[in-house]
């Protein structure tokens, strides 16, 4: 923290504040809050000697807008550099085309695949979402059922404890052998893979529900089932979000794996055919598409989740930030 952002310093040494070069301001600027900035301006105006043209210059943008602009610039910086490096490396011939194709090559690969892409996209998205949806229901459902019923834990707990840590990818060949190639096994695989994390997290979250909350509900007359619906479910929600997002990402991975190994259509299959032609550009196009799909799904989850956990403090990340800044 340097003087320019401090209101106290500003009132005593207006000249320094005002004439500080913009670069220094943006460079240090741990986002001067709006209020101190206006204090500075007013202090400058009230002092006839300090109110030079320089004090005007500083307010060419509102502080909040300037802060936003600065953040946007910062965010764009690394991606821009990466793209620049990519262009330099590929067009400049530093890296061979089959390892790193040029942007132009990727574009033409994309154009080449435009007939196959829509169908593959629909297939993969459909299967992933179906599998993920099933996995979500299955995982959370299993976690809740296990937490609810001692009988179920005794009956199935041992089996599931063995199945759970087994890598799902290892099951792909078996699935192919048993169920053959098709949508069913692929969806089942995605559902299985995603439900694992979710069931463990759910069970854990239920175990961590505050006993005082459960007791309070019980003394107010809630039955066990009502307590489950009105206390357990809402309390575990925020704790599930991480697993819900993680398993969404895993769902795409499972889709790719299933299609690479045993499918006749879909994006993963398309990617494998491109690879057989040593068409790196085509492979990369599919990778980018998967990346975009996964990002979109992740955003959607966050958006859907937000109103459901409005009661947590998470909606104000600035609380932690301001605490750090104050220190």
């Amino acid at each position, binding site marked *: 923290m340097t003087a320019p952002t401090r209101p106290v310093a500003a009132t005593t040494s207006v000249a320094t504040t005002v004439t500080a070069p913009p670069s220094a301001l943006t460079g240090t600027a741990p986002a001067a809050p709006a209020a101190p900035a206006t204090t500075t301006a007013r202090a400058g105006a009230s002092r006839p000697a300090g109110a030079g043209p320089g004090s005007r210059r500083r307010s060419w943008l509102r502080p909040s807008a300037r802060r936003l602009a600065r953040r946007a610039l910062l965010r764009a910086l690394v991606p821009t550099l990466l793209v620049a490096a990519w262009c330099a490396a590929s067009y400049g011939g530093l890296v061979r085309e089959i390892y790193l194709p040029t942007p132009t090559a990727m574009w033409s690969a994309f154009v080449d695949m435009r007939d196959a892409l829509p169908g593959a996209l629909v297939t993969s998205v459909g299967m992933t979402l179906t599998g993920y949806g099933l996995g979500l229901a299955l995982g959370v459902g299993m976690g809740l059922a296990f937490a609810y019923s001692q009988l179920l834990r005794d009956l199935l707990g041992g089996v599931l404890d063995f199945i759970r840590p087994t890598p799902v990818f290892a099951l792909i060949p078996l699935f192919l052998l048993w169920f053959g190639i098709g949508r069913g096994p692929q969806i089942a695989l995605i559902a299985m893979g995603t439900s694992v994390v979710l069931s463990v997290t759910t069970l854990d979250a239920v175990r961590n529900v505050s006993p005082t909350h459960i007791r309070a509900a019980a003394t107010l*007359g*809630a039955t066990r089932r009502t307590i489950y619906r009105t206390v357990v479910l809402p309390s575990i929600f925020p704790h599930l979000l991480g697993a819900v997002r993680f398993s969404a990402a895993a769902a795409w991975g499972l889709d790719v794996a299933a299609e690479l190994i045993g499918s006749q259509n879909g994006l993963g299959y398309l990617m494998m055919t491109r690879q057989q032609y040593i068409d790196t550009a085509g492979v990369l196009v599919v990778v980018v598409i998967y990346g975009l799909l996964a990002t979109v799904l992740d955003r959607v989850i966050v958006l859907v989740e937000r109103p459901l956990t*409005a009661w947590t403090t998470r909606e104000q990340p600035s609380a932690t930030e301001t605490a750090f800044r104050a220190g």
Partner: protein
Amino acid sequence: MNRSRGPRDMDPEDMDPEDIDSPEAGAGCLELCSLHVRLGGRAILAGIDLVVAPHEFVALVGPSGCGKTTLLGTVAGFVRPEHGEVRYGGRAVVGAGPERAMVFQDDAVFPWMRVRTNVAYGLKVRGVPRHERARLVDEALDLVGLRSSAGLWPRQLSGGMRKRVDIARALAVDPPVLLMDEPYGALDMMTKQRLQTEFEEIFERSRMTVLFVTHDLEEAVYLSDRVVVLAPRPGRVAETLEIPLPRPRPAEVKLTPEFQDLRRRLGRLVEAAEAAADVRGAA
């Protein structure tokens, strides 16, 4: 299973129908019969005998860690006694029941519900119709002075405000037995005194039987019909002090010589109980 028990749905797995009384039996006695509780291998309560008459107000005092919360938990049905039992209306208590509401020492307000929904919770699970519920919730909120905060999330409240939500939530259901574990511990003097006076009035108007844990001896004398002093390690009843002050008790009662005398006597009893415990502990 359907033994005409009002609109509530009862889970047979969770609550033995035997220990849930119809409202008219709510006038029953609360009996603690030679209660022994052991937690983590240690005897926490050793032979508590206490009979609380219908519509009696009993305060529990005693040094920190002597087992007051454990005692309330046993009455509420969360803690299972090793020997002895808690009887209500002549029947042994097994598990929590809606006729015994509790205000907890730690924060029990549901953070995922707004203040109003929190206070309405007990009424809702009992199937009280919506408009009736709204009226009772407003009443309870007025009582604790939180009407204007009804729409806030608990995280937006101070600790004392959250405590008041908790109290309002328990009062809203008008339970036959109310167990309160240091409900006013977190409040400032002014709010505390106001709530004490109002609670005293509520108690008189209601048919409630109250078991009230507190560290504040003045509060114990002011509110209760009888103060039970517990001695620690293991927890047992050391002394009992009747409070024959007539009701209603306006706040000015605290200034009378009778009140001051009772307050002093209680102070001596608590000191004696602690001293005796220290001697036993040292021996």
